[in-house]
């Protein structure tokens, strides 16, 4: 199946597009979809995860508009037609 990632703010600029489609298999997780997204975007990888591969604390991962932290985090199993999003804080005023 395919999953759509929506990217916000500087993350969209790093990826060069605001929406990215990745292929996933049944039973895979949000973390698997994130791996697929970042594998194709090395600049995004360093912005989203630290040197240890841990998701940076200020990056929010959303599934259908809710933070996956309120589910099983990156281990949350994907369902067909899930909308995934990555968004960082912005500070401009």
């Amino acid at each position, binding site marked *: 199946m395919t999953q759509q990632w929506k990217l*916000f*703010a*500087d993350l969209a*600029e790093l990826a060069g597009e*605001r929406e990215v489609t990745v292929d996933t298999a049944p039973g895979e997780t949000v973390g698997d979809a994130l791996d697929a997204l970042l594998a194709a975007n090395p600049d995004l990888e360093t*912005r989203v995860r630290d040197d240890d591969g841990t998701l*940076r*604390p*200020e990056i*929010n991962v*959303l599934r259908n*508009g*809710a*933070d996956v*932290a*309120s589910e099983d985090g990156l281990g949350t199993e994907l369902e067909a037609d899930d909308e995934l*999003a990555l*968004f*960082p*804080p*912005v*500070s*401009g*005023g």
Partner: protein
Amino acid sequence: MTDLRLSATQLERYSRHVIMDEVGPEGQARLLAGSVLVVGAGGLGSPVVQYLAAAGVGRLGIVDDDVVDRSNLQRQVIHADGDVGRPKVESAREFVDRLNPDVTVEPHELRLSADTIATLPDYDLVVDASDNFATRYLLNDYCALEGIPLVHGAIYRFEGQLTTFENDGDGPCYRCLFPEAPEPGTVPDCATTGVLGVLPGTVGCIQATEAVKLVLETGEPLTGRLLVYDAMDMRFDTVEVRQNPDCPLCGEEPTIESIHDVAYEGRCTLSAD
């Protein structure tokens, strides 16, 4: 005790408020007796100051340590060409003085820090119209600890983020969403990336709307919701904001108990010492 009597001039000036059941003379009197601190007199602060002054919010504190630069004028609509080089708080005060004599502006020409924030008088609520993470985290922590409602708005190029923290003891707070600031240098600023001039107008107007509703105690504030505005696609997305049990400020085992615990620079985390 709020004085409910409006003068004849005030009844005329605020007639479009007074005529509505949701505001009425009582609501207008509440606005005139209200006080709001606007932190930042730039892109977001300009429309916030404009509309709160027009609405007759009686006491308007404005914090900014900057002077007007010609490059600000593409979006910072309370400042004019002749104000270039002048303190923004002075330019803002003159704008309000011309607009509405009912409003007293309290200009605070300073950089907010854990020390200077304590020198400010009390306000009913705070609007975060600042342009940097250090100020944003300081305001979040201060308002959450003191129980002061905080209206958050932030922009980036064509996007805005908005939410309201009522800070009535139930959370959430900004750190529930973003526990610490990004590493310095990772998120470029307006000077580097540019910003669509009208973007802070839209976002600031929504912040002003939230502030007016909070003073009136009417409607549903943006509590527990982050509104993400995309000017390019003209979309508003809503992201649920829940209290994070691991939040360092309002979680189950908070590590931040005072703004003096935090170094408001870099990632805005606990001081090393």
